[in-house]
């Protein structure tokens, strides 16, 4: 039983956070929002230099051979930075799915390019009405319950949609799927689709935890500096207690997230409960953080000029993806009340009812 991250994991996350502190500094995000500044391709190049796209691919194809538990801190940091690139979808969902389906030649070829970062893969999933980041992708991985397709950007007929988060491009595939793009069918396909869902829900949860962290940090730094009625607003209990409440939510979402990361791919009742719990806890925390950060900033928080809205809007988008609040709450209830999932003090990491 060891509930800590290794030094390697922490160093990797630390290096990534340093990179995003630079790539996604408020001024950079603001420039990106307004279509100025560094290009997405340039940012992607720098993520590639850290080897991030291939973290979860086997070493045999040039990846790092790591697991979701290794990637969870990266996803959290991507959220904290409001990273515009869909690194999480690419490295956390598409690459593991392609790795699992690498018996297919087309899949194997794109996997190689995806690991190096040369290919950028967006993900279409039946639970998501929209594909995120397709405009900068080279490929779209289309998951359905019966087949998995891998489309080049040219093969995918995409219809763009507009998120309130201008850094988040949305699209739908409008064309019908052709046999030639299919890379898996039947049980393999449906397992990949199910796996992608758990990864997607877990990793967007991690991003939301990161967004919550960023929102609290913004509010704290404003409250420590802004004065009203002769003292710093952060010295008022009304402000302190609101922010403390957000922090409590965040601190108790994180262990849930990390525990779910160790078992999300097992696809058991408990793993599904854990992933849904993580998504609910992290999105709840981010929701409260967004509203609280606006309130702490007063009218400033409601303006475009302050950075709060970048994070609030991203959280809003991520909350609805990979299963919205209703989906995950119903899934939790189904496990509890219909599947009679074992709970209680000896069932957290496994069940020991059989012990003498």
């Amino acid at each position, binding site marked *: 039983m060891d509930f800590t991250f290794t030094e390697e994991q922490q160093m990797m996350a630390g290096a990534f956070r340093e990179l995003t502190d630079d790539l996604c500094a408020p001024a950079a995000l603001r420039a990106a929002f307004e279509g100025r500044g560094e290009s997405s391709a340039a940012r992607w190049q720098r993520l590639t230099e850290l080897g991030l796209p291939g973290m979860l691919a086997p070493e045999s194809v040039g990846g790092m051979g790591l697991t979701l538990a290794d990637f969870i801190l990266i996803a959290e940091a991507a959220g904290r930075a409001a990273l515009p690139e869909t690194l999480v979808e690419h490295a956390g969902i598409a690459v593991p799915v392609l790795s699992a389906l690498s018996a297919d030649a087309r899949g194997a070829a794109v996997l190689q390019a995806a690991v190096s970062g040369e290919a950028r893969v967006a993900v279409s999933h039946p639970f*998501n*009405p*929209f594909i995120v980041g397709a405009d900068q992708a080279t490929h779209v991985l289309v998951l359905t319950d019966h087949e998995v397709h891998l489309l080049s950007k040219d093969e995918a007929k995409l219809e763009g*949609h*507009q*998120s*309130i*988060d201008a850094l*988040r491009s*949305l699209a*739908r595939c409008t064309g019908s799927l052709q046999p030639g793009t299919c890379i898996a069918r039947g049980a393999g396909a449906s397992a990949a689709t199910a796996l992608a869902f758990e990864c997607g829900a877990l990793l967007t949860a991690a991003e939301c935890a990161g967004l919550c962290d960023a929102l609290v940090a913004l509010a704290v730094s404003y409250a420590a500096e*802004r*004065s*009203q*009625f002769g003292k710093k607003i952060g010295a*008022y209990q*009304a*402000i302190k207690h609101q922010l403390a409440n957000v922090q409590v939510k965040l601190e108790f979402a994180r262990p849930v997230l990390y525990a779910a990361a160790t078992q999300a791919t097992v696809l058991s009742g408990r793993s599904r409960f854990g992933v849904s719990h993580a998504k609910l806890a992290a999105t709840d925390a981010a*929701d409260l953080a967004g*509203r609280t950060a*606006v*309130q702490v900033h*007063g*009218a*400033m*928080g*409601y*303006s*475009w*000029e302050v950075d*709060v*809205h970048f994070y*609030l*809007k991203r959280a*809003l*988008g991520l*909350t*609805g*993806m990979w299963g*919205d*609040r*209703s*989906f995950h*709450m*119903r899934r939790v*209830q189904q496990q509890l009340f219909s599947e009679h999932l074992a709970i209680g003090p000896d069932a957290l990491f496994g069940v020991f009812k059989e012990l003498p």
Partner: protein
Amino acid sequence: MALDLHYTPDELRFRAEVRAWMVAHVPAQPLPTLEGEQGFALHREWEKTLAAGSWGMITWPREYGGRGASLIEWLIFEEEYYRANAPLRVNQNGIFLLGPTLMEFGSAQQKARFLPKMAAGEEIWAQAWSEPQAGSDLAALRSTATREGDEYVLRGHKIWSSRATFADWCFGIFRTDPASERHKGLTFFLVPLNHPGVRVRGIRQMHGEPGFAEIFFEDVRVPSAWRLGAEGEGWTIAMATAGFERGLMLRSPARFQVAAERLVRLYEQHAATADPALSSAVAQAVMDAEAYALSTYATATRLIAGGKIGVEASLNKIFWSELDVHIHRCALSLLGAFAELAAGDSAVVGHDAWLDGFIFSLAGPIYAGTNEIQRNIIAERLLGLPRG
């Protein structure tokens, strides 16, 4: 008769009249947002249409373009207004805030000069209260007005001024006594936004439209005829204006009842897949909207009987602003992955603009005195707890 919750025949006839007029006049298509230039112009037109039908501000006396209507009639008017999905009031700073203030504190000439054009929708007013260092703490403001002969020279920087980007006039308070502190030495002025030395710069709100503005006053010379009340009386008058803002007029319960009704329809479309808690949350939204309406009727009858609005303005402020956030959070939860779509996207379900409404609702607990300040007021003035 007490607790007689029935409309009189006159009130019923009045409702029918409003309803018929709205059916005939409300634009079939919703107007573009009044935070944009084109939308602002169209909302200005709508104010003129309202005024032409004598519906601009029915509770005003007839001499200023009103109908001398009772508060109950006002509530009925608002119910029908929101029921008809009529446009937002671009004129609200004038008719709800400055208008009543002028009636109480203005000279005969000022009333004659300003009120009819306000009622007619010909002059749209902006607030110029806040300053960069003075948000909730209005008494911390620094803009000055220096008397020179029969004129004043205004200097300073106002911010968070709603409507100012496209409005005609603004009102605000300035420090006339440079030696004064806090609430003393302040004076209330009315200033045209196209006056020499006045510079307006839009501030984009979260959704990207310039719903706020900054106003810079650079040696702006105004005649004393544009001073409202006496020198040094600014704080008293501003507090009266703020009282009107928190009072009965500005947050009609009908707005929330309409939103709650739409929420019920939205819930019904998603009931099969929604978190079971949402059914109760939606029911709570309906109940809270009705509670707010009932409370408003109770306050209205009390005011008609000669009462004054006091700390209940603070109770109202907290209740409606939290209700508005609640309604829109429920809606976004029901919309799931569709919640994030920007207004106007082709995949937006219906035309209910829930996302814009949610963003807008986040301003509720902040403006017109943050809810934290309202809670202080309730605790100190209503409950009698000691000051901090």
